[in-house]
């Protein structure tokens, strides 16, 4: 394999990772406010179908994305309403929506299977795309890929450098304290659940209009992505940069699976395609081990020096969720 091919492959990884990045950043914002939107798997498929349909009908890719985002925001609003206002289990409602939206997408999308909708092409940035290596890697992508990269930086900036971001963190960490400081916890949670849902909803059309262009019903290849995004949010420790790293790493592994398929023919292709999943579990294991009690017990038996060293290592890798994640806020 030549250097150029690798470079093109890696540029493909950035592209393939982009929808995952957008969805994962969206979910990160939602969870930072203390709400888990578990419906992602269904949301992405449904928004992918609706976005494809909208683009097909109107011929406008932008309207396709907009339609997808509206779908994502709407599903998220149901999650918000049932968990924040009606105080039902976020996991239960999210799971039901994940299953139902998927079926709904296949049902409603039946008539447009295999149709030809417009496709979002790459738009190289003048001058910047001429830079060796980086130009090919980053600046010869589609506009949505650029947006995904900007989104990472923006989300980081928003969460850690702005007043609104500080309030967001406060609401997810200790809603009672945020409320005590004049924050409207309910509307903040609604807002970020819906914004997060809209971002997730942008990932669907990103697939059906660009990365995996087309709507082919059950074999469109979107099933499973939502669950990956949820796992990535944990892996990324609710930090935008770490979440984005996880998304690209996942896309990289999938690309590697495809590349190796031709070289390692003795391994069935299905096995290589799922290689990222056991790795995902291992990664989750790594970031969560530090939170388990037996590790703490084990550490207590180690001699002083190695104990502090291991502890530092665990502190660096482990990810701790927002303290109020998944719990409703009661005022009295």
């Amino acid at each position, binding site marked *: 394999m030549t250097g150029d091919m690798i470079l093109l492959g890696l540029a493909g990884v950035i592209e393939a990772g982009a929808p995952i990045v957008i969805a994962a950043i969206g979910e990160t914002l939602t969870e930072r406010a203390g709400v888990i939107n578990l419906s992602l798997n269904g949301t992405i498929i449904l928004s992918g179908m609706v976005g494809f349909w909208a683009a097909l009908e109107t011929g406008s890719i932008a309207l396709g994305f907009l339609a997808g985002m509206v779908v994502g925001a709407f599903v998220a609003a149901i999650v918000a309403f049932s968990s924040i206002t009606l105080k039902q289990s976020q996991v239960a409602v999210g799971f039901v929506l994940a299953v139902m939206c998927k079926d709904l997408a296949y049902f409603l999308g039946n008539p447009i299977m295999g149709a030809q909708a417009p496709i979002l092409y790459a738009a190289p940035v003048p001058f910047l795309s001429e830079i060796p290596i980086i130009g090919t890697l980053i600046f010869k992508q589609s506009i949505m890929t650029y947006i995904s990269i900007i989104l990472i930086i923006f989300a980081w900036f928003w969460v850690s450098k702005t*007043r609104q971001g500080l309030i967001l963190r406060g609401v997810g960490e200790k809603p009672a*304290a*945020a*409320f005590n400081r004049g924050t409207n916890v309910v509307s903040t949670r609604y807002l970020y659940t819906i914004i997060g849902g809209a971002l997730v909803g942008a990932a669907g059309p990103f697939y059906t209009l660009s990365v995996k262009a087309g709507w082919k019903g059950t074999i469109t290849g979107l099933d499973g992505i939502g669950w990956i995004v949820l796992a990535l949010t944990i892996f990324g420790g609710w930090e935008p940069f770490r979440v984005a790293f996880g998304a690209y790493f996942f896309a990289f592994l999938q690309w590697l699976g495809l590349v190796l398929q031709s070289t390692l023919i003795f391994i069935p292709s299905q096995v290589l395609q799922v290689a990222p999943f056991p790795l995902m579990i291992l990664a989750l294991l790594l970031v969560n081990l530090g939170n388990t009690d037996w590790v703490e017990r084990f550490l207590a038996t180690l001699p002083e020096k190695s104990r502090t060293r291991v502890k530092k290592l665990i502190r660096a890798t482990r990810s701790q969720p927002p303290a109020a994640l998944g719990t409703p806020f009661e*005022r009295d």
Partner: protein
Amino acid sequence: MDIEFSEINKSFGQVHANADISLKIPGGEIFGILGENGAGKSTLMKVLSGYINPDSGEISLGGEVSHISSPADAIGYGIGMLHQDPLDFPPMQVIENFVLGQKGRMILTYKERIKEFQTFQNKFGFSLDPRAYVESLTVGERQQLEILRLLWLGVRVLILDEPTTGISAQQKDKLFRALQLLAGEGKTIIFVSHKLEDVESLCDEVVVLRKGRKVGKVSPPYKTDQLIEMMFGKQITLLTPEPAVKERVTLELKDLVVEKYPLRIEDVNLQLKAGEVVGLSGMEGSGQDILLRACVGLLRPVAGQVIINGKDLSHKTYLEFMQNKVSYLPASRMEEGLVPGISIAEHFTLTGNTDRKLFIDKEQFRQKTQEKIDEYHVIGRPETPVESLSGGNQQRVALSLLKESLNILLLEHPTRGLDIESAIYMWEKLKERCKKETSIIFISADLEEILRYSDRVLVFFSGYVSKPLDSRHTSLEQLGQLIGGKGWEDELVAKESYEPSK
């Protein structure tokens, strides 16, 4: 600014937390609100600060009816409250806590905010590190931060709910001086407490609440007896129970070292005798809970031994401690004591399946539960879910669930949140167990409780542990000083002289 409550009512379920409370607080005073736990003090103050909306009644500020329905409204009127459990963000930095809730430009420039914060805190003689994480601060420091934050927002009425619980003597002095300074500037301070001495030494006027109602208003000079009678309704004379200490050693700690971030306790040595009661005293978070948890296998010691009845259980689990008849009653009843969503009878079924049967004999357990309910005067029925019981009744159920014959019983804040009768009842039951040779170790923030019921006391101060003190020869003042970090020279010397014998 004068504050006037008129006929405030607030109920939680069947508990009438505030009943027709009318009250006038003149501006520029330090005004005390006194009452035992559960008297309705916090509820009334949460109503004023907008955290709770009353069922009926209104509040006038400076003669005009106010419309406070959220903390944001209250801040708008210049009212801020320091809650008993600090409402701050432990995993965030001091400066972030300070800024959160302020209005201002969208993008945060921490450099400038830190400068402002530093000049502001110097005014009050506080010295917090703006970049420190709040979880690493002491309770007193967290209070200081919260007071600074409220004052920066321009608060003219400052409510403090039980601010002297868990802070050192110096921090208390500092707090009182700051409060007097603020009152001098014309700010209204509302000081909520159940501690007579604090109220007596600080407040210009005191109102006493009992069981949700206003009992009366008192001005200095205060008569302690009168205040107590107002608080409790009658003069309660507490009997000091007789010690029941036997010679047999039930628990031995040998050079025990335990750590739980950020605290580390070193070289604790203790021989607990059968029937003995040892109280663990200190500011909250000074390491008492860590030691207690190490004695029951919930925290593994880093070094040293925990020996129960001659058996080394140092690295065993909680369940093995339980098999050796060590029991533990945690402070948070619904999180760590009783299972919410299941009934009292089901609790007895869970703990009572001693002959390891497969199927439940429901009638048998119902009867057994009814007997226990009668014996412990629990207000509830066997099928009542535990979460719908009152705090006192929950604690009675937890106590009645303990096995009959225990070697050691470990208790965290056994009477916190209980009314005085339940508390006395609780200790009667515990002392009965001591007579049957059960040893008790308990944590309490209430110094009087510590001195009254313990045979010996261990004092904790930021991870240091005193040698066992004989409670008969220890005064409240001595204990208070040790807790506040004074007089430790003797203790440390005592520890060093201990060293060679190892």
